[in-house]
């Protein structure tokens, strides 16, 4: 039975080999710009990326990376930066905080002077800490936890809006738009906050609670659940018993889709569901079909009125959308825009302004940026706070699913449609 033994050995090697490679980085394989040759530090500008390319958040990670690759392509077509072509070195944080830290370490050992990431808040915290310790600039494109820019780090910058921005927009919208429409005084609204219980959901939940208090409102309950939960019917039943007018929720597509399907199964009727990130994803829309209509979501702007953008930014926006659709045969998601926006800002504004990859020069260049609202593809301006590194000109907007499309409804200046379906019709009448 020699053959049997050989295949047993093969099986073991295969198992072990893939166990290791399955967790490894994708360095090189996904190098942007089509160049397969290994880059020398001298003839290319290397930028590290640290998105979740596998695991539960892989969807957002890959969208970010796909967006970022196109930014590199655009910049390389124009001759690159500092007179050199740009090459990405892509690490996979595997949707895991520990992995995010160790991969950040690895990127730095491989010579990365700038890292762009991270999507997952729980990974953004340790990864930026590693970067700070090594004096490497960390540019965040997608993670929302406030804590990331609350630590007084010198080399951590975040372009996107934060958990606080989401919570604030959701609460302001509830107070200024929903309450009058429902004919209930804001302070009398029965509001429940529910969120998945990682750093991401918790930070947004905290932000919502704080924003409610600042507006003289309060939540009757706050429910936490694991995004990995295999069932949410007990949460649905609990809410049914509490009978709130409005639910403020933040989570991921699988738990949000499951929750809303089970809400229908158990006939949980809310007057409004106001998300605070996650709900506008196309996957959520596809997963819920017509059930998605009427749901609000406060998050980084997607699908704003592009007339609000500066003319050359609008052109960049359209070029990006066209290129993205051609390259990946898909429409860019919010994450695609965020990855593109951050990488483009880095390569087109920060690095040229710094004139080198020296960390203090990069920091100086980032802090000197003063781009007005409408100056980036998502509509944000850019002004990094010199104490926190947060982009103070990032903001959240409120969107709504109307006829299976995402429309911006709040604030008015970016709106594409009026809010509708307030209050939500009961399930039996839909």
């Amino acid at each position: 039975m020699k053959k049997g033994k050989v295949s047993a050995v093969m099986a073991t090697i295969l198992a072990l080999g893939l166990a290791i490679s399955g967790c490894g980085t994708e360095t090189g394989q996904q190098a942007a710009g089509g160049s397969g040759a290994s880059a020398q530090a001298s003839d290319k500008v290397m930028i590290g990326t640290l998105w979740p390319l596998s695991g539960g958040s892989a969807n957002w990670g890959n969208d970010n990376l796909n967006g970022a690759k196109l930014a590199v392509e655009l910049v390389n077509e124009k001759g690159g930066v500092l007179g050199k072509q740009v090459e990405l070195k892509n690490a996979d944080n595997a949707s895991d905080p520990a992995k995010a830290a160790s991969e950040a370490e690895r990127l730095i050992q491989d010579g990365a002077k700038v890292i762009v990431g991270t999507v997952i808040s729980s990974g953004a915290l340790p990864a930026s800490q590693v970067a700070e310790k090594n004096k490497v600039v960390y540019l965040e494109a997608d993670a929302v936890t406030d804590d990331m820019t609350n630590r007084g780090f010198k080399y951590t910058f975040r372009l996107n809006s934060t958990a606080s921005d989401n919570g604030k927009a959701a609460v302001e919208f509830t107070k200024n738009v929903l309450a009058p429409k429902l004919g209930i005084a804001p302070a009398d609204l029965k509001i429940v906050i529910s969120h998945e219980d990682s750093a991401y959901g918790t930070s947004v939940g905290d932000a919502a609670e704080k924003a409610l208090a600042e507006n003289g409102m309060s939540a009757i309950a706050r429910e936490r659940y694991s995004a990995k939960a295999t069932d949410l019917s007990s949460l649905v039943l609990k809410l049914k018993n509490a009978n709130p007018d409005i639910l403020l929720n933040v989570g991921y597509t699988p738990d949000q889709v499951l929750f809303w399907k089970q809400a229908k199964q158990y006939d949980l009727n809310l007057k409004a569901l106001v998300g605070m990130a996650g709900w506008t994803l196309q996957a959520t829309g596809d997963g819920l079909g017509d059930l998605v209509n009427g749901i609000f979501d406060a998050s980084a702007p997607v699908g704003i009125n592009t007339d609000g953008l500066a003319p050359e930014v609008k052109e960049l926006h359209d070029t990006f959308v066209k290129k993205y659709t051609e390259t990946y045969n898909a429409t860019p998601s919010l994450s695609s825009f965020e990855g593109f926006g951050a990488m483009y800002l880095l390569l087109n504004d920060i690095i040229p302004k710094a004139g080198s990859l020296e960390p203090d020069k990069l920091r100086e260049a980032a802090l000197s940026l003063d781009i007005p609202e409408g100056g980036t593809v998502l509509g944000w301006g850019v002004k990094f706070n010199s104490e926190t590194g947060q982009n103070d000109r990032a903001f959240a907007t409120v969107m709504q699913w109307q006829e299976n499309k995402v429309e911006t409804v709040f604030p008015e200046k970016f709106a594409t449609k009026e809010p509708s379906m307030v209050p939500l019709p009961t399930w039996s009448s839909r």
Partner: protein
Amino acid sequence: MLLQIIMTGILLGGIYAVISIGLSLIFGVMRIINFAHGEFLMISMYGAFWAFQYFHLHPYVSAVVIVPIAFIIGALIYKALIHPAMKRSASVVVLATVGLSLVLQNMALFLWKSDFRTVPVPIAGMNVQIGSIYIPLSSLVAFVVASLITVVLWMFLNKTQIGRSIRATTQDKQAAQLMGINVQKTFLLTFGLGSALVAVGGSLITPIFTIFPALGVNMVMICFVIVVLGGLGSIPGAWLGGIIIGLIDAIAGYYFSAEIKQILFFVIFIAIMIVKPAGLLGVKGSEEVGLK
């Protein structure tokens, strides 16, 4: 409300049972902890998704095709990977299934991308109402099928010749071989059957769950708890374990918080390991992996 919660828990138990029975069967007969169980579930759900996407088949209908395919794939995996690994040692088998789990997850990521997929069929939102109690139709179907499988599988194992040979192999591999039972064939059949049962579970939960490559990781933990609780290798045990965990899930989720459920599951898991390692309906000694 209490009645509603209990009903919800029992039906949820049906869903949990239907995705756990295959794991229990494979464990009981072959003494293999199949760490790739969650990925088998994930792949069968992708099967249901693509069948819907290309042929507009309802997941309940496409199961007729997907379940036999899962049987064949399971049998092939046994031939190519499990059988050779079993000749080595128990730890090689464990490593092989862990490896297989990673291979399948990364394969799904490569082939089908990390996008979230769903099969939007109306049954996801349908319910039956008895008085003030709501019964989700998709859960009811899963519960009924899980119960049917439990009965049929129990009869198969106890009343048929093949079933008896499977049980004989479970009890004593060497003696069964001496009695003229083809152990290899029995294992092949069991692994195929276990895989087919996972696919049944996959088809049944597809209407309400989102499909993505890492999905199996979330689902498989609960399967392990159920199989350990019910008794390793006991089919009625997996059913009972599913119901108990379903009830705990619903009651703890309602009266305490959804957050506490996960903790409770694993506290139970550990407690069972210490107090009654063979599980509620397991045969004493069945927890000894790889010794027989």
